[in-house]
């Protein structure tokens, strides 16, 4: 994207983001949300996180060498860090540095 397209995209994201935050204050100030909304609220955040992991890896060519192994091993390393040390900054930075080292120093 360039110039005006980027600003339009930012405006759309700003509006939608504010809409998601203001939503309950508009719709549920007097009545409780219906059960299907509560169902989405409860389970969709988990679904979207998995989708976003795959989405961020969408341009990786899994059919050619190194078959996405750098990405998969970095995901496992990040998860390992997070399950063992339980500090999200350490997990994110450790995982990213691990991946950068793989991409920059290993062919």
């Amino acid at each position, binding site marked *: *994207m360039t110039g005006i*397209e*980027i600003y339009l*995209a*930012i405006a*759309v*994201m700003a509006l*939608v*983001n*504010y*809409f*998601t*935050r*203001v*939503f*309950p*204050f508009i719709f*549920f*100030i007097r009545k409780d*949300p219906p059960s*299907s909304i509560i*169902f*989405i*609220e409860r*389970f*969709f*955040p*988990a*679904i*979207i*996180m*998995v*989708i*976003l*992991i*795959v*989405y*961020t*890896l*969408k*341009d990786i060519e899994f059919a050619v060498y190194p078959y996405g192994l750098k*990405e998969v091993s*970095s*995901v496992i390393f*990040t*998860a390992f860090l*997070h*399950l063992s040390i339980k500090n*999200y*900054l350490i*997990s*994110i*930075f450790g*995982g*990213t540095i691990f*991946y*950068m*080292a793989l*991409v*920059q120093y290993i062919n």
Partner: protein
Amino acid sequence: MKYEKELKKAFSISIPVLMGYIVLGFAFGLLLTSFDYPWYLAPIMSIFIYAGALQFVAINFFNAKAGLIDIAIASWFINIRQSFYGLSLLKRFKNSGKLKPFLIFSLTDETYALLTTIKDDETLNKKYYYLFLGLLNQLYWIIGCTSGAVIGSYVEFDTAGLEFSLTALFVVLCIEQYKSLKNIYPFLIGAISSIFALIFIPSDKMLIVSIIIALIMMFFFRKRIEK
């Protein structure tokens, strides 16, 4: 200053967020300028959007030249969890008057977590206490994002692989989701819908198609998920 006590209290409880937002914002700024976008998009985005995961994904939208409707739908579902934060704050924000629109805007994951885990101090003027907490947190985020972008655009170093910070962020959020849900089905649905879309759908439509398939699957298997 009239509300010094409120400001002090807000600052003291916001210190963990200070650390997190500066570091994560810095990574966002670096990533943004590593694709040669101008540094000043970082303060613009952190002032007007002010959402961590969405700002990271926004860089992918720019790179992919995503359509505005696709961006709107994807942003909605990426941030849908926020639509329920307000439910537990309806009463607490009730008497905040003109400050209310900003207090609602300030509800990021971290601000929400602070507001709901820390007990209200009855001696404080609450609406100003909430205001300072929201302002301070956003200020940390703006500083982090902007400094990362400025440093990234003036200092030359090899950023190859830096984009993995986004993947790593979602891996961490995914594990946290599992810890609180303890239910494997949503994760299976997310994996099946996104891997299907990855294989069969062109990459620029992959996110939207994954979301739609996941929504259909979750209602199809609702009984099993809720058990």
